[in-house]
């Protein structure tokens, strides 16, 4: 089973990209723009329920995860966010902005060796976004941004479980290289919209806004209430 398009009154916009691609900045600016037009917009983050979060952080700390359980526990986490927030808000007619979506899971799990078909089926309960922007940045740029700014890498984040290298920075580099290759495949297979993330921030943002205006009837999402919703 693969993802299906939704028929909900809301719209789902996702951003994807390597760590350090600048996607979080871009989705933040997009959110601000929509809010200031008084639109019904909701931004979802990876803050899952306490229970699932407790399980996954315990598992990560103890380094108990294999590719399959890593994939499943994150899918559980995502399902919680999806069922509690994303799906109801789409039904309620919101523009839902998602910083990372199932594609992050696709590439991460595939990199760890889970079969592509299996991962796609796993996440098939989640609808396909109306638009997914992929912030395309060369691996070297993304590595520079991450490794110069925030050198404290976590075990799974650096792909240490894959045994690529015993040096955590080296492992991170090799892991990101594989993530990057898988992204390339997923971006073309799933029709993600590429944005050149080496361009100036404002230029990228204007491209994103322009694309959104062309593909989504934005005026219909203007809130009838005077009060702006800062989700």
């Amino acid at each position, binding site marked *: 089973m693969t993802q299906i398009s939704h028929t909900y009154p809301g719209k789902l916009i996702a951003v994807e990209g390597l760590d350090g691609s600048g996607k979080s900045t871009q989705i933040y600016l997009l959110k601000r723009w929509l809010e200031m037009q008084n639109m019904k917009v909701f931004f979802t983050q990876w803050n899952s329920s306490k*229970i699932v979060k407790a399980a996954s952080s315990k598992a990560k700390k103890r380094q108990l995860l294999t590719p399959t359980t890593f994939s499943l526990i994150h899918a559980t986490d995502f*399902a919680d966010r999806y069922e509690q927030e994303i799906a109801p808000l789409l039904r309620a007619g919101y523009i839902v902005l998602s910083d990372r979506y199932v594609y992050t899971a696709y590439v991460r799990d595939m990199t760890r060796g889970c079969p592509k078909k299996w991962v796609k089926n*796993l996440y098939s309960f989640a609808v396909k976004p109306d638009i997914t922007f992929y912030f395309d940045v060369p691996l070297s740029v993304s590595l520079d941004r991450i490794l110069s700014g925030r050198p404290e890498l976590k075990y799974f984040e650096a792909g240490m479980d894959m045994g690529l290298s015993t040096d955590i920075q080296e492992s991170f580099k090799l892991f990101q290289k594989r993530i990057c290759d898988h992204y390339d495949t997923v971006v073309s297979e799933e029709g993600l919209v590429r944005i050149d993330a080496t361009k100036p921030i404002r230029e990228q943002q204007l491209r994103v806004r322009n694309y959104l205006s062309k593909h989504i009837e934005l005026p219909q999402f203007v809130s009838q209430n005077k009060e702006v919703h800062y989700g």
Partner: protein
Amino acid sequence: MAKFYGEGLPHCDVQALSGKLLVIEGADASGITSQINAIKSWLENQGYSVIDVGIKRSTLVSEELIEAQKSNTLFHTTMSLFYATDFADQLENKIIPALRSGAVILCDRYIYTLMARDTVRGASPEWLEKIYEFALIPHLVLYLQVEPERLVERYFEKNLRLGYWESGMDLGLAGNVFDSFILYQKKIKEAFLELRKKFPFHIIDGHLSIEEITIEIQKTISPILDSLNP
């Protein structure tokens, strides 16, 4: 040699798994636990190493899963995947290592119960089957079939009250727990019969006495154990 339903677990070689994976399926209160205990003693008496496993017993997420059930704050898809995580952890860390050591694994329910519960709650059977492609195909699946009306009696013999989940109260099938239990267990039974079209279950009449059932199970298991005795 063991086999997966689908592509299986990444980086897992199942060529060398010499043990036997035996599953007993059935509803709550259908008598599985008594049978597992009896069969375990019977096998150990013969000198087999026996490991028993069951759902919701992983080191990874069992505590949180129990907590989630109690608080009833997670929705269906999330619960499905939480159970799948629990199962995967046990498969990788208990079942497969035990099979590698040549033990006999007795499973107090396997993926079929999880799939039956989820389909009754609206999950797509196709979605579930594909998720559980990472599961090993058991050497034998026994299904202890007990009619819902008899299950209620058994349930009361064990517990003073009908449990929320065992009665499927989350589904809103009936306003009271007794009717809900019967309706829910009927649905579970139908789901099992549907699964049986794809997965071969050996059905055992759960209305027989405990001793009769044990003998029936022993008869079914014996030929499978022969290959452990070269």
